[in-house]
């Protein structure tokens, strides 16, 4: 497993060069925006249960066949497995966002996930849709772009200082896209 710092070390070691100059600029921005990143991780972890249950609910609303007899979220046992998987994926995304590097997500979550889902008969298209909904709500919470209209009864805004979080929103979004890409 690597983080943003050890990633630059590993790539410098391949060239037997020290880490200096331009390589350090990226790390300095990680340090400078460190508090923003911790707030972003906190935005995901504090709302994890809500993000996951909303995503699975949304996926089922769009395709109600999933909870009818023969569907992949029927009976409760399989619905519970679906919620559990959503939480696991979100957890590894929060690790990747904390580390600033996707290697933990790749190594410990995505490696072999598609093959497992195919073997178990899980519809990867539906799973990908649930991850896409998680992406929408997580990025809205990180960037504080969510609105009462889209949030409904569950609307919540994180009480963090206002600022430019575009880079972190994009980074978090890229990890969700990585999951969708890996299972579809």
């Amino acid at each position: 497993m690597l983080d943003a710092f050890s990633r630059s070390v590993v790539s410098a070691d391949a060239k037997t060069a020290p880490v200096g100059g331009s390589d350090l600029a990226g790390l300095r921005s990680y340090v400078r925006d460190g508090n923003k990143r911790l707030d972003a991780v906190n935005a995901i972890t504090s709302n994890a249960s809500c993000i996951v249950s909303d995503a699975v609910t949304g996926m089922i609303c769009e395709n109600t066949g999933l909870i009818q007899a023969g569907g992949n979220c029927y009976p409760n046992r399989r619905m519970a497995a679906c919620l559990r998987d959503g939480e696991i994926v979100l957890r590894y995304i929060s690790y990747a966002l904390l580390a600033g590097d996707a290697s933990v997500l790749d190594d410990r979550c995505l490696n072999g996930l598609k093959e497992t889902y195919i073997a178990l008969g899980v519809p990867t298209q539906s799973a990908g849709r649930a991850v896409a909904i998680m992406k929408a709500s997580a990025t809205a919470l990180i960037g504080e772009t969510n609105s009462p209209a889209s949030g409904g009864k569950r609307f919540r805004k994180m009480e963090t200082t206002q600022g430019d979080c575009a880079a972190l929103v994009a980074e978090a979004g890229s990890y969700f896209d990585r999951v969708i890409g890996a299972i579809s």
Partner: protein
Amino acid sequence: MKSVVTTVVTAADAAGRFPSQNDLEAVQGNIQRAAARLEAAEKLAAGLDAVTREAGDACFSKYSYLKQAGEAGDSQVKVDKCYRDLGHYLRLINYCLVVGGTGPLDEWGIAGAREVYRSLSLPTGPYVEALTYTRDRACAPRDMSPQALNEFKSYLDYLINALS
């Protein structure tokens, strides 16, 4: 690669939980000290060749017998390899400063070093002498800020202890 963030994530993953407030605080503490580390890494990277040269010269001037026939530095090829190794050690210290932990030195420098030096009949004393010279030669604020120097010297001491 062991670092503060990967240690925190490994522990959270083993427990199957999201990163907790404790984890975020640990990472925050690491970030606060990062500016000095990165400064030391930058200055060391910029002067790596000069520092290597000075350290090697210091060790060969103290142990001049090393260049006699039958000793570890009796040909130019062997002397060059000594300088190369010192450069490698300093590069690994640069990596440690970037990561904020001893992971790179442990994994790529120290693990197995004793066995290698023994099988090649190489003395580790001269390496210790060269690194000690570097440690005592570096000074603030000429080379880097005091806090950065402190970080740099702590990794030098870690390596010296491992080699002695």
